[in-house]
């Protein structure tokens, strides 16, 4: 394995580790997400998926290793700087602005597209045709247009997940990271989510962290399986689907 990051990749990790006290939550992870690639990281609860996600987004500092986005080393950059480079992320449950309507949530996101302030802080976004059109488009994509003016505190769980995706997409990202978008949603909503992710613009590189195998394998070009903070195995969706080691891992026996 090379020790420097791949400059042509959308996202490149080399020997990334993170300790919490004496516990090594993420240990020596290296991989690349190539331009336009759909990469999924799966793993059981406690495998270190969310920690890894937060390391890439910049929410946690690295204990060791290097992360680069579009060839630029961002290991020590703040989350907002990474957002400015075209990285958009979703958050796990209830991380939306609950007191605002769906459309207002999008306005807050759109105002800072790619970390750059678009209009005067004092301007009214509801009177800006471009912002209204963009928010409408984002809501339409996730099938929430009829709920545009409803407060998010009154949304169902599935609807908040859909709005999460809309929030990230609205930023026109080049690299999209989704944190368990299928967590807790109904089967019909899951079908819609898979459809939406498959229809994503091929210019967007996608990193999906997912506990739900069905979604993970339906969307991915390449799958990484994490276990105990390390990379357990990797391969195409078919290889992972047919791997007995992975099956054992998910069923809770085998791997020691």
């Amino acid at each position, binding site marked *: 394995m090379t020790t420097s990051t791949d400059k042509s990749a959308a996202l490149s990790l080399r020997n990334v580790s993170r300790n919490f006290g004496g516990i090594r939550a993420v240990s020596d992870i290296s991989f690349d997400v190539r331009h336009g690639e759909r990469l999924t990281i799966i793993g059981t609860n406690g495998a270190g998926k969310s920690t890894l996600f937060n390391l890439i987004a910049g929410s946690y500092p690295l204990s060791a290793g290097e992360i680069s986005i579009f060839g630029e080393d961002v290991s020590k950059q703040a*989350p907002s700087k990474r957002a400015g480079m075209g990285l958009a*992320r979703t958050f796990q449950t209830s991380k939306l602005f609950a007191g605002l309507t769906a459309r207002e949530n999008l306005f807050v996101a759109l*105002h800072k597209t790619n970390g750059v302030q678009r209009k005067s802080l004092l301007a009214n976004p509801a009177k800006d045709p471009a912002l209204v059109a963009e928010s409408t488009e984002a809501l339409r994509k996730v099938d929430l247009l009829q709920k545009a003016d409803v407060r998010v505190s009154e949304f169902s769980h599935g609807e908040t997940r859909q709005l999460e995706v809309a929030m990230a997409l609205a930023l026109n990202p080049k690299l999209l990271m989704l944190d368990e978008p299928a967590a807790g949603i109904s089967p019909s909503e899951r079908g819609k989510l898979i459809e939406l992710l498959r229809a994503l613009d091929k210019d967007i590189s996608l990193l999906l962290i997912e506990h739900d195998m069905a979604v993970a394998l339906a969307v991915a070009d390449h799958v990484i399986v994490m276990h105990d903070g390390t990379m357990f195995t990797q391969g195409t969706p078919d290889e992972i689907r047919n791997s007995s080691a992975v099956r054992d891992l998910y069923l809770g026996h085998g791997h020691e």
Partner: protein
Amino acid sequence: MNRRKVIIGVLVLLALVFPYIVPDPGFWVTNGGTRTLWIGLVALSMAYLNRNLGLMSLGQLFFSGITSYTIAILTIKHGVSYGISIPLGLVIGTLAGVIIGWVALKTEAVYFLMLTLALTLGLYSLSLAGESITGGHTGINSVAPPKIFGLDITARNTFYYLCLIINLLIFAACLRLQSSNFGLALNGIRDNAARTTSLGYRNSGLRLAAFVWASFIASIGGVIGLFYYQAVTPDSVGLARSIDLLIVVVVGGASYLGGSYLGAAVIAVFESIIQDYTKYYVAAEGALFILILLIAPQGLMGIGEQLRKRRNKKLAASAGTQ
């Protein structure tokens, strides 16, 4: 949205003709109308902070008081013209907001409440102790109002309309800010600061701007209060009056900007009437406060939302049984 505009329009119209339709205008224009506008404005600065930052402040009278005292000391004691002392008072009150906001916004919830309470108590003690400058517990009295274009601004109706214009401008500005990118961002920070950070917002700067705006509103309230009483005393910045303001905001509905005026009107009218009937009027006011909170926990402005939620719940329940 349109119904809201109609309601606001009707209320503004009522406020405009108020001195001419109210019985006994000699009493009610000042004790009902102007008093509501003055208390309502300072309460608005509290409600604005609560609505946008999720913080309840007991320190808004500190900014009012700083402004009142600055003007009174400069003009009454040192003969500086109002043309200088009033703007200077507003600037000092607002600047105090910058310094205090910078410190206070590092705290949260009950600590913020305590810190702002300490401010109020601090100014109260200072104004009591610094007798040679502040006039001690009698304060600074006989504050002759300025004349604008030869007009006596404290003439009953003139002062009422002046206060009304100032309040309409400030309230309109608050509503405008609420729907702006700034207002949405503040609400975003209140609900989820981590997310606005990752979007690239500078949370602390935006919150400070909101705090300073509220301090400016309270400072304007200080100017109105000074000429309303034509005096400034330690009691006008004391704890008792801060608690009164808290009651006004909570009764009106602490999450609604308009609630400040509704609460102020209820309290001003109630106080004016009840004082004629019983010397236990403070206890009566307390009882009213408890009663309103039992009926409308979200304040008077929250009743509409409360009814809507109940209706939705009923609809959902009846849909469930079918």
